[in-house]
């Protein structure tokens, strides 16, 4: 006779429910990891190489660092964005609209809150790994390895958690997959360009610099550069705090959006 695993609670969340969804993701990942890894790592690496060598031939140093070092650390945020927000938006939409995967999961003892939590944890974990790829590639082109690099997967994970929940939230509100074009054009592209990845923001108007402080991608870029190039300072705790707030806020809104979508 089959016996159920003991129920362990994490607040309102039950660990067996979250584990069950994570197991599904891991088992599925074994069937598509090549394509996911390719798309999540090659594109940021192309940005790194194109900008690093393209602009690198025109701009020798930025803020005391070589342009490859500057871009090699900045594109960590790009890889995180591509492997979290995009994966969450499209993956979530496909799973509830076309594959009806979430109908199957919610028929088991799993609630929407646990489903969203597990999905975002999984995407964040992938982002934590994929986010490091441009940095590793940059090492081969002159970025010096440092001990601080060991913190980059955690920075990428935390940033990825917020963007994963953002993507799930967008999918939860979207009526059609074409609606994502608005988000990509009006939200993600501006934030991606104003993250300080390819050029320092100090040359931009002051109001843009103030607004950029609210950009989680900018905070990610600054934390990665602190970890790899400058060393951490106390104000980096504030940056971590902002990423935590971003992740928590998006998590709650994503749960609400998905409840509206999945429960009639």
């Amino acid at each position, binding site marked *: 006779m089959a016996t159920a695993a003991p129920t362990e609670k994490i607040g309102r969340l039950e660990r067996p429910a979250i584990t069950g969804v994570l*197991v599904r993701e891991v088992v599925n990942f074994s069937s598509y990891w090549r394509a996911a890894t390719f798309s999540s790592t090659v594109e940021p690496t192309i940005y790194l190489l194109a900008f690093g060598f393209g602009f690198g031939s025109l701009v020798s140093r930025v803020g005391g660092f070589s342009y490859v070092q500057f871009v090699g650390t900045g594109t960590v945020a790009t890889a995180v964005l591509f492997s979290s927000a995009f994966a969450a938006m499209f993956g979530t939409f496909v799973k509830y609209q076309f594959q009806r995967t979430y109908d199957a999961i919610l028929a088991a003892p799993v*609630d929407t809150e646990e489903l969203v939590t597990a999905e975002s944890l999984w995407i964040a974990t992938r982002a934590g790994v994929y986010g490091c790829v441009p940095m590793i590639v940059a090492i081969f082109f002159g970025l010096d390895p440092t001990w601080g690099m060991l913190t980059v997967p955690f920075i990428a994970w935390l940033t990825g958690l917020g963007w994963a929940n953002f993507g799930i939230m967008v999918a939860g509100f979207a009526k059609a997959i074409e609606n994502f074009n608005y988000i990509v054009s009006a939200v993600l592209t501006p934030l991606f360009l104003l993250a300080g990845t390819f050029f320092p923001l100090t040359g931009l108007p002051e109001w843009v610099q103030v607004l950029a402080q609210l950009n989680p991608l900018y905070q990610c870029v600054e934390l990665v550069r602190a970890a790899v190039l400058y060393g951490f300072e106390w104000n980096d705790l504030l940056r971590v705090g902002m990423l935590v707030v971003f992740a928590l806020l998006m998590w709650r809104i994503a749960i609400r959006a998905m409840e509206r979508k999945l429960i009639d």
Partner: protein
Amino acid sequence: MAEELAIRLRGVVKRYGHITAVDHLDLDVPTGTCVGLLGPNGAGKSTTMRMLTAQAIADEGDLQVLDFKLPRDSKQARAQCGVVPQLDNLDVTLTVEQNLLVFSHLYRIGRHDRHEAIERSLELANLVERRDTRVDKLSGGMRRRLLIARALVHRPRLVLMDEPTVGLDPQVRQQLWALIDRLRSEGTTILMSTHYIEEAQRLADTVLIMSHGEGVARGKPSELVVEHAGREVLEVYGPPARLAEVESEAGAAGLKTRRTGTSISILGLDGRNGFGGFEGERRHANLEDVFVLLTGEEIG
């Protein structure tokens, strides 16, 4: 002594805007029985099924599944239910066994019991030989069997089947009926929605006929037929004018009739040799006759 109920619905209402999908529905599913929800598309069967897993929340009424009150205690109820959906939602890039492995985790089967649970489900659904086959390489009938195996992996006390054989060819449907019949004979409680008359008649101990969200009749299939349509029916064929004449005369004689496209069925002819000299084909009354009589709708 009152019979033990696996499902008890009272006055359940579900609205979508101005549309009432389920309208003051009462439903009892006694433990160890198979109950069929019979109705055409749009009758409210799938909405009822979704409410039983709290994927739809009722606007009014009381819902109890396995003594758990819904939607508050739905998760506990779902842990002891298996669900076979109308639309295939398997992970198509995974193998048969991987699909069952995932759901053995989702249904919280302990580590030491997982292997045995998966083997038992594979055997039950006759998929042992296909355990390493990817789902997208399976036939439609095998995918349906896998959906059933997935719903049974944790030995549920109650199985909800939403149109389990819809869209399958007759041969595959018969195989699935045999599987469902086996579950029924082993004492698993089953609630099954269907719009196939034969499926309800063969598998269900009792049937609830639904129309426009309401339950319009309930009982054992054979008793419902006798109560509403009698035992025998005369099927008269002919041109429209002749059918109209037959219908009019049968009505005048106090007999119920039902139009069936190119013919008219005269119901409740039990014991009579004929009617008004009309020639036709005699057949047994069936649930479809009852359904059309009670709802005015054709089914299927």
